[in-house]
């Protein structure tokens, strides 16, 4: 699931400083689940912006809308009449959402209110961690289901670096060293041979940016 986080208010204010009337668009899927861009956050950000503008002596009129998925052209189409009434759009979707709106309504400037961070999962409610780097060449079959590319700071494929200490990573003493976790799981499953094999360097161009997938006709 895509995890995003709201930009600081200062940055958002600068983006829309010159506008009097804007439309805030939320997205009902990933960013709702990670509490960043759902209908509730749209309401809170709109209210905060109105207060901020009033604090600086100005006035801001806001329209609010939340589409089911911002990365679908048909769903973004529903914003048509609201967009006509505003000078700019502030999108609370992930990067894909912002660009779907920008591509569809080219005459109206579209601004991102969130920073799309990573593909991840909730460790507990309110705390999300990255556990997939979308590298295009999944390695999980060889490590018992723990991704070294994302969860090891250096993305190593052949075992831990010299910097691991008591199972923790050199970069952050709180973070587990992925290879220690892999070692323990493979040992538990009796599949340490997987760790003993040599793995050649990764194909870093497995996903030529920007990625594209052409599905066979269904």
């Amino acid at each position: 699931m895509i995890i995003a986080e709201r930009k600081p208010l200062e940055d958002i204010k600068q983006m829309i400083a010159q506008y009097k009337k804007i439309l805030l668009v939320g997205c009902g899927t990933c960013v709702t689940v990670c509490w960043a861009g759902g209908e509730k956050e749209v309401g809170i950000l709109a209210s905060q912006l109105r207060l901020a503008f009033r604090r600086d002596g100005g006035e801001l009129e806001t329209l609010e809308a939340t589409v089911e998925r911002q990365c679908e052209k048909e769903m973004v189409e529903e914003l048509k009449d609201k967009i006509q009434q505003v000078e700019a759009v502030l999108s609370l979707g992930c990067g894909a959402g912002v660009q779907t709106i920008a591509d569809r309504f080219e005459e109206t400037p579209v601004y991102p209110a969130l920073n799309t961070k990573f593909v991840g999962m909730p460790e507990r409610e309110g705390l999300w961690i990255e556990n997939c780097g979308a590298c295009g060449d999944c390695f999980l079959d060889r490590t018992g289901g723990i991704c070294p590319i994302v969860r090891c700071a250096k993305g190593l494929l052949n075992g831990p670096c010299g910097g691991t200490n008591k199972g923790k990573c050199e970069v952050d003493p709180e973070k587990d060293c992925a290879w220690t976790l892999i070692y323990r799981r493979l040992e538990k499953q009796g599949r340490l041979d997987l760790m003993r094999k040599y793995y050649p360097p990764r194909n870093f161009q497995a996903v030529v940016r920007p990625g594209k997938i052409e599905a066979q006709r269904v």
Partner: protein
Amino acid sequence: MTTGVEFLPCIVAFCCVHSAYQAADAAGRMRIPYPENIIMVHIPCAGRVDTLHILRAFENGADGVVILACHEGACHHILGNIRAKERVERANALLREIGVDGRRVEMRTCAPNDGSRFARVCHELEEKIKELGPSPLRKHA
């Protein structure tokens, strides 16, 4: 700063039905006066207040917002007052981001049969908001 006419702060109080509302009744029965300009919005539990409600209260011109909940460990719904405290902290952060004094949002606790404490809390709140002055977020004339 108050130009002659005495600044009367407008405070919105989200009152939990299980504690603050009954404490207000108890204060009433003991005829203990407290400031009139506290607008009491009743909620089934302190956990029902959303950060949006707090911000909207400021948009409508409130000078201070308070959530009056049960004491910690005495909430009918166990976690209601703890959730409310987290939301007040978030509202504080949002207000500071806007450049407004975060102390305008606060959470206080009281017991349903403690009328005198309810009145005391209301007076303290009014003093504090008077000291902070009118909210810069009021609608312009």
